[in-house]
């Protein structure tokens, strides 16, 4: 695996479910090392886009990570190319400990021989990540017993040890307190650069603090793209997503 | 330990005959698919044991039965046989129904030089030195059944059976017979034991336009087969079925609605005449209920206990080898008529009977062999059968 992050280049991505088009011809370029925020109304197709890129749903078009075409590959092969993701509702191995969760995430490239042996000491990257995500003291707790927010941190931690070069994070700070969002944001800032990060979020404060570039999806299409300020100022975005003053009725447009 | 081929160092286990009782083993399926049939056999054995005990026992000792459940599972039969022999040290074991269970226990009895009395009609081609066969072998049931069909002028048959040793072997014999006797076998079908879906088989039978059906189905399958048979518009008049595993008990569970007029081949029916049978039927009903019919395997099991008693008394000992040695020519006035042990084969002379199922659920004899038929498990006396064994 190359040590430099690749960029993500999506062309004409289209996902349809029994006639309903969830992602409708999206073009998207994320430069290597960027942190791109992906926002848009509920049901705009953000998660579906990530699903398509990671092989969970079938899609047409093209999604290149670096030189590699991702579409049409199996999920685990895409993961091995260095694409990692988190889920909108946390998906952990609930009956394994925090440490075991991380160790498994770290180990997809291990040889069969290594797999058949015990984990000796805690691997360095795992130990480091445990500290980073603040779960060092819950190392031996079963993941199923973590609180909601802790689970999300663990998920991010798993991506880190997985050494993913393209991180696709689906609402990573949902349910986190303000301080924790800050910490998470800073963490993301740190890992970007050598990795390319795509974050889906609805928290505008968070977005303002940490986004470099933003893409707005609406009804499966790109509605707007640019810097935080540009996007915020876009009346179309205000209309379908941000809303105006709280007393004004807001149009809902996500679904026909 | 000893290598194969070296002299057998293992001796038999001698029965425990100390005290004033002698133990015998009862080995039948009380659970699982075969319980349907085997429980009645157990009942018949118990009846014989009680009668014998009431009459003073065997060589002055009361019989103490030790029951084990074979659970319709052949390896379990083997385990339980070994337990009866080695732990309980019984003088003889009565039981088994399916040939598969007998095949499973056979080495156990041979290895331990212990006695098994096997009470069910079977496919022949076997002769273990430690088994006494009190049910019919093929020349006492299958062959007479075929002779009867031939005498009725039937020219073609369809063979239907359960998928296991007895029916497959019986059908092999039937085919050999058919070839030599101008009978055409129009088809042959097997259903796994316990199978209850006979739509297709009956369609095939019907389409074959055979003049008769020879039925070696066992157990539950018979019920489904005959219900389907009647539903297809086939009757005893248009296409009679000769069955070799349907006795009074099965008739009762299928219903005369479906069976009336059909034929069976056995050595005994509840309606068989004679004082010995009157006594047997009366005693059985008194013990187990007036609605409980007696049947051929039950009778054979009942007889087997008396035969063992007679052998023991003739030998004057419970010792297995002595009992075996005394067996030849031992007779018993059985419900089916006089039976005699053939010491050479350890089978018994039995009267063959063809019966017709009546509306009352009883089977009445329509033909018999006129007297006991000498057992011929390897069909050595039949030229058409050369090459079968």
């Amino acid at each position, binding site marked *: 695996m190359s040590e430099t992050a690749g960029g993500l280049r999506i062309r004409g991505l289209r996902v349809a479910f029994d006639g309903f088009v969830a992602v409708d011809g999206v073009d998207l370029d994320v430069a290597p090392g960027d942190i791109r925020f992906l926002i848009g109304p509920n049901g705009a197709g953000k998660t579906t886009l990530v699903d398509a890129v990671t092989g969970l749903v079938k899609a047409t078009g093209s999604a290149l990570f670096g030189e590699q075409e991702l579409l049409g590959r199996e999920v685990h092969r895409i993961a091995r190319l260095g694409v990692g993701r988190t889920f909108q509702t946390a998906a952990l191995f609930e009956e394994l400990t925090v440490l075991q969760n991380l160790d498994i995430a770290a180990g997809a490239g291990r040889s069969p021989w290594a797999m058949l042996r015990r984990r000796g000491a805690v691997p360095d990257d795992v130990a480091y990540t445990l500290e980073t995500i603040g779960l060092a003291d819950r190392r031996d707790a079963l993941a199923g017993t973590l609180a909601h927010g802790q689970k999300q941190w663990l998920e991010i931690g798993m991506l880190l040890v997985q050494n993913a070069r393209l991180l696709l994070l689906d609402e990573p700070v949902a349910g986190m307190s303000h301080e924790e969002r800050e910490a998470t944001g800073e963490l993301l800032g740190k890992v970007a650069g050598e990795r390319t990060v795509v974050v889906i979020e609805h928290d505008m404060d968070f977005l303002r603090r940490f986004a470099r570039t933003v893409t707005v999806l609406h009804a499966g299409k790109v509605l707007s793209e640019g810097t935080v300020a540009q996007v915020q100022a876009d009346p179309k975005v205000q209309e379908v997503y941000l809303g105006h003053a709280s007393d004004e009725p807001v149009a809902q447009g996500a679904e026909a | 330990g000893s290598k194969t081929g070296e002299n057998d160092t293992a001796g038999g286990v001698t029965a425990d005959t100390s005290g004033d009782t002698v133990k015998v083993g009862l080995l039948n399926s009380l*659970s699982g698919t075969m319980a349907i049939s085997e429980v009645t056999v157990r009942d018949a054995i118990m009846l014989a044991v009680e009668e014998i005990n009431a009459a003073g026992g065997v060589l002055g000792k009361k019989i103490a039965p030790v029951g084990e459940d074979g659970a319709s599972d052949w390896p379990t039969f083997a385990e339980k046989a070994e337990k009866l022999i080695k732990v309980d040290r019984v003088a003889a074991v009565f039981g088994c129904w399916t040939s598969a269970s007998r095949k499973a226990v056979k080495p156990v009895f041979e290895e331990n030089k212990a006695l098994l009395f096997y009470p069910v009609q079977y496919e022949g081609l076997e002769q273990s030195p430690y088994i006494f066969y009190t049910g019919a072998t093929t020349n006492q049931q299958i062959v007479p059944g075929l002779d009867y069909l031939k005498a009725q002028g039937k020219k073609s048959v369809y063979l239907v059976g359960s*998928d296991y040793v007895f029916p497959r072997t019986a059908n092999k014999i039937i085919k050999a017979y058919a070839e030599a006797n101008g009978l055409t076998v129009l088809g042959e079908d097997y259903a796994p034991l316990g199978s*209850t*879906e006979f*739509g*297709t088989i009956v369609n095939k039978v019907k389409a074959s336009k055979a003049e008769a059906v020879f039925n070696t189905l066992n157990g*539950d399958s018979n019920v489904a087969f005959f219900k389907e048979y009647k*539903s297809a518009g086939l009757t005893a008049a248009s296409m009679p079925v000769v069955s070799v595993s349907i006795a009074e008990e099965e008739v009762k569970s299928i219903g005369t609605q479906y069976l009336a007029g059909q034929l069976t081949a056995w050595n005994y029916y509840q309606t068989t005449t004679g004082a010995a049978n009157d006594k047997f039927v009366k005693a059985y009903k008194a013990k187990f209920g007036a609605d409980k019919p007696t049947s051929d395997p039950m009778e054979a099991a009942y007889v087997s206990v008396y035969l063992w008693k007679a052998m023991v008394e003739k030998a004057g000992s419970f010792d297995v080898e002595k009992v075996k040695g005394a067996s030849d020519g031992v007779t018993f006035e059985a419900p089916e008529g006089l039976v005699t042990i053939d010491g050479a084969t350890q089978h018994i002379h039995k009267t063959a009977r063809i019966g017709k199922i009546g509306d009352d659920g009883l089977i009445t004899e329509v033909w018999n062999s006129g007297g006991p038929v000498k057992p011929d498990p390897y069909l050595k006396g039949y030229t058409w059968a050369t090459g079968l064994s």
Partner: protein
Amino acid sequence: MTVILGQLFTGVSIGAVLLLIALGLALTFGQMNVINMAHGEFIMAGAYTTYVLQQTITDAGLSLLVALPIAFAVAGAMGVLLEWALIRRLYTRPLDTLLVTWGVSLMLQQLARDVFGAPNVQTAAPDILTESTSLGADLSIANSRLFILGLVVLAVAALTAALKFTPLGRRIRAVVQNRDLAAVSGIPTGRVDRLTFFIGSGLAGVAGVALTLLGPIGPTMGTNIIIDAFLVVVVGGIGQLKGSVIVAFVLGMLQAMVEYLTTLSVAKVIVFIAIVAFLQWRPQGLFTLRTRSLA
């Protein structure tokens, strides 16, 4: 030609029997995820109910008709008892229900043996159901099979309507999909579970009554058919009644055709191979309900 038509009908009727047996499972297994190995013994209970009724109601036709609702109630009640005593503790570990109910099925078989005796028992069928309807030259259709086909059609229609359109149907489905959420949505989950189990088991009782027309009535009558019935539900797609319906008839047809050309044993093996092959194509059964969650 008549043979082929005859076999076609045999296939349909095998399918009808399969479906009748599988219908209750489509509820208890398909909807509730309970792998009830004692389902066969509930069928047996239905058959014995017919037998017991015939001891007092001697008219075969009448007793059969009376037996249908009573067997439904008897088997249903057994189901409720089972649910209350055991199953409700096992909703979080669905596969364990298989093992527990296996134990229950052993006990029920022994119970039948002790109550009714080890040998099979007999019931009389109304004469018309032991005969056949002739459809011209050599082709006839067994009335008992027609009766069962009618019964199945009726049962499927009623069950479909109940699940799809009634509040009860919604509740049943909601409870299995998310038990806690159902509870906090105001649904008495315990009662819904028991009711579902009552209906599913009751259908087994009805199947038992119908089976007295075709096969043996004895302690082990349930064991032989139960695996096939589970296969029907699995291949049809868990949670989907229409899948079970289609699959039952397709398997019945396949079985009849292959058996006609070969033997019953070969037909069973081929059906199995066909099922494995089919699951290669549709691993979650004919009809599946996908969700986006990873569970």
